[in-house]
């Protein structure tokens, strides 16, 4: 489905990586590894279409993602280093609104359940501002529970999470893969996601 060929990323005057080739099919899990500053985040942003590769192509179902644009956005969910939650809104509002913006309106009940499952029960209507670092990250991750996209692009989703939450995320990822989803992920922590096919891409 997603096919990357000859990708090169140039930052400043340095080429972070070049000749990156891979493809991901339904049910496949890909982990991008590499030390700090090796270009993992840069790669993931290219996969989303947020930045342009210096060279090479990214195709989704055979079409260049640049040409697909909004259609492609319907099939991906990207979670980056930033949480993308509003400090002044509650977890519930944040989840409903960000889902709606991703083209997927959900009702209150569904949102409640997702937050509950992420371990935020009882904190749904507090402003996100007062939550702890890990709790905010959980609000962001709750989006994964309600979205209906196939390709997930996750940039260090495990940061700030405690071990219980890491287990939880792992099981969410596994469920997604079972249903035929695709995941591209980076992390510096240890995680073992059971998948039919696990690919690893080492940068630098």
């Amino acid at each position, binding site marked *: 489905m997603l096919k990357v060929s000859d990708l090169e990323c140039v930052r400043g005057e340095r080429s972070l990586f070049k000749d990156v080739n891979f493809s991901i099919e339904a049910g496949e899990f890909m982990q991008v590894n590499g030390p700090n500053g090796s270009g993992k985040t840069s790669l993931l942003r290219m996969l989303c279409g947020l930045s342009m590769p210096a060279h090479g192509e990214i195709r989704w179902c055979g079409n260049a993602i640049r040409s697909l644009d909004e259609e492609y956005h319907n099939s991906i969910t990207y979670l*980056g280093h930033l949480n993308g939650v509003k400090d002044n809104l509650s977890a519930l509002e944040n989840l409903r609104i960000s889902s709606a*913006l991703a083209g997927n309106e959900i009702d209150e009940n569904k949102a409640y359940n997702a937050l509950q499952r992420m371990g935020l029960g009882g904190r749904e209507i507090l402003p996100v501002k007062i939550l702890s670092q890990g709790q905010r990250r959980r609000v962001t991750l709750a989006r994964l529970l309600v979205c209906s996209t196939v390709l997930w692009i996750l940039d260090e989703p495990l940061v700030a999470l405690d071990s219980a939450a890491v287990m939880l995320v792992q099981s969410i990822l596994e469920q997604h893969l079972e249903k035929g989803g695709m995941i591209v992920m980076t992390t510096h922590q240890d995680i073992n996601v059971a998948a039919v096919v696990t690919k690893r891409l080492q940068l630098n």
Partner: protein
Amino acid sequence: MFLWVIQRDLLLAMRQRADVLTTLFFFIIVVSLFPLGVGPEINMLRSMAPGVVWVAALLASMLSLERMFSSDYLDGTLEQMLLSPQPLSLLVLGKALAHWLVTGVPLVLIAPILGIQFNLSTDALLILAVSLLLGTPVLSLIGAIGAALTLGLRGGGVLVSLLVLPLYIPVLIFGAGAVEASSAGLVASAHLSLLGAFLLASLVLAPWAAAAALRISIE
């Protein structure tokens, strides 16, 4: 979807109930500052009034521009919006509209009362309100372009004013001109219809330009 954007922005504004009110009070205070700087002579104040009210409206609208995208940018929400399956220009239109509802509409409502402080005639007060009603949405729309261009740059708040103020000037001239004409006993309809034309033009062009600017800023 478009509605969600507006609704979200209004929600954010309401969450801090003070938010809408503060823009309003900023407007009121700036308008009241001028007599303090200039002195209390009635005639001079009266002839200054349209200009002062319009400049204050411009500043009030401009001041809150920075917030239009930057908080969404800093916390990553804007990234998510760019990845949303809707056309970006629609999103931008939604945000500009929300901005107008929060900052423009209150000004339109309060301006006539402030006009009284300057002893404007009833006719002139009416024209003032109408000109603001037509003009403030243009300010929000043009402002959206500036806000999008300066996104993530340090000193964005001041830079945006630098970019946007020159574009605001036609609105200012015809807006204040309409009121002056009417307080000089002339008809203001020419001025007002020009303002209307600006509004239509910016409704068509601004969202598109701002969306393009956003894409560039976020890369």
